């Protein structure tokens, strides 16, 4: 994997309003942010460099969040943020690669706390 740090946070979500508003909030909080519109975009981006935290939606076209996780041997700190629960077979297969899971809609302050916790974890 490329060691170039692309940004603090990679926001992966096919829902454009969600993706852009989240990115806006994170940028306003001082984080550098890159965006990907689906799982395949995210994998392509991660080919070119690394991020500290990946905010990952689950249901997306081309590649789902779960498939992204399955494709990555050592993913960044992953916060799943989805309209669907993360459980069952998905959780069993890629649960160990996930830092936390948030159900949409997530209160922005809670989101910022989670991002902070994930970044702090990386620092340790």
């Amino acid at each position: 994997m490329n060691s170039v740090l692309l940004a603090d946070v990679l926001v992966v979500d096919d829902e454009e309003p969600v993706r852009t508003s989240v990115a806006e909030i994170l940028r306003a909080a001082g984080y550098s942010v890159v965006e990907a519109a689906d799982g395949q975009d995210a994998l392509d981006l991660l080919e070119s460099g690394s991020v500290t935290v990946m905010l990952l939606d689950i249901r997306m076209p081309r590649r789902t969040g779960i498939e992204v996780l399955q494709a990555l041997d050592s993913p960044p700190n992953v916060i799943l943020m989805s309209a669907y629960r993360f459980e069952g077979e998905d959780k069993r297969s890629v649960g160990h690669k996930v830092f936390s899971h948030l159900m949409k809609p997530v209160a922005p302050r809670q989101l910022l706390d989670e991002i902070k916790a994930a970044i702090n974890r990386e620092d340790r």
Partner: protein
Amino acid sequence: MSRRWRPGSVTLVIGAVIVLLSVGGYFLLQHSVDQQETALLSSNTTDAGADASSLFGSITSGLSSDAAVVKLTNANPTAFVNFVNPSGKSTAGDANVLVRKEGAGYVVVASSGSSYKPGQILTGPALATVRSAAGTGVTSGPVTSNGKVSYARFAVPVSGGLAVYEEFMIPVHLNIATVIGNAFNNLNVALYGPGPPSSSNLLIASTNALPLAKPAARTTVHIGASRWTLIANARSPYVSGLASSGPWILLVMGLLIALVVMITIETVQRRQRYAQSLVTERTADLNSSLSELKETQDALVRQERLSAVGEMASVIGHELRNPLAAVTNALFIVQGDLGQELSPTTEKYLSMAERETSKAAVLADDLTAFVRPRELVESEIDVPGLVEEVLSATPQPDDVRIDLEVAPCSLVGDRGQLAEVLTNLVTNAYQAMPDGGTVRLGAFCSNGSATFTVEDSGSGIKDTTMQRVFEPFFTTKDSGTGLGLAIVQRLVQAHGGQISLENAASGGVRATVVLPVKHKVAG
């Protein structure tokens, strides 16, 4: 259990009619048999009387011959005796006597037999007989009897104060055939002399059983100028055999027919009633099967509708989340941009937007929770601990009191889901008492079950509402998705338990959840 035979009214009426008809028939037939018997007896008795009359009439004609001889011989005693008793033998008790009137009495002139001697003055019945004949011609005198033998007396007047008197003795119970002939073998006969029949004027009788038993017939026997009486009854009924049994046969047959008819009617009626009850029973069975079928069908339709509704709910629940997330974020960004100094109007409507977005988020949660198949993550749950956790996570309104009665015990289940169940029930109880009240929360374990009861002191639920409380999307609250109890029921059922809601005696609603304890085997 003994079944008593209690015949129906129709049976009784028909039975009674047949019995009455047969009893009536019995009397009618019996009367006719009696009449026939009487007629036959009467006719035979008359014949017997005629025979007796001719027999004893021959005695009177014999006397008339005696009188003629007396006249012809100028009352020669020797000629008289020779005529009346040519053989010269005398029989005890029999006497033929020629008498002559002297003064007020009669003196014997000549006599056959030893009973009377010439010169003897007549007395008693003999005198009475001669006197009576003097006035009327040939006649019979008194008949006298001592029960064993009887005496018959006859007399005929001859001119010149003369009279012929005859008396003879016969045993009372002489074989009747030797006296009257055997034409009346079937008759018991008693022949009495003049005057009312009695034992003292009985001449002969063919039976010892006197007076003769009824039915008996009597006839008058004319002996010269006097009248004897013959009484007879039948030794065996003239109307015999089948004819005399007729009335009885009719009666017995009638009663038997009544019995058979009654039994038949009753049997038929019973069978009919049984068949009817069978039909009723089967109809009820059929109806209940039909209603069960209808219920099953309704349940299937409901299930079908629910699964369609559930699918839609799930889709809506999930699809709402992205726009909600975007709106939540947008509001946050706008708020940040506007800074701290907000106009009251902006602040008011921003918080309204936030509040309503949260509500929509709760709805989305409920919608997805309702249809989501959830895995049971089982662990040993301490019941008092669970209750405490639920109560502390569900802040109680100020005016609500909580009455706890929790027994220390434990069960195996999904702690999160069971907490959700209890939270929901406790929240419902709080909401049922907007003006405050008491929530009674009970929990105990027994016989392999853990039972939780949550009872409020609110005003209860209408029956029509009660039937639908577990239906998804059914709610009586102003703000509510109507999914709470539906989700609770699913969770309880997933644990193999049951939930029921009822109006408690106190007036409020009591929810009861019974769950299997299922302790894990150690190890």
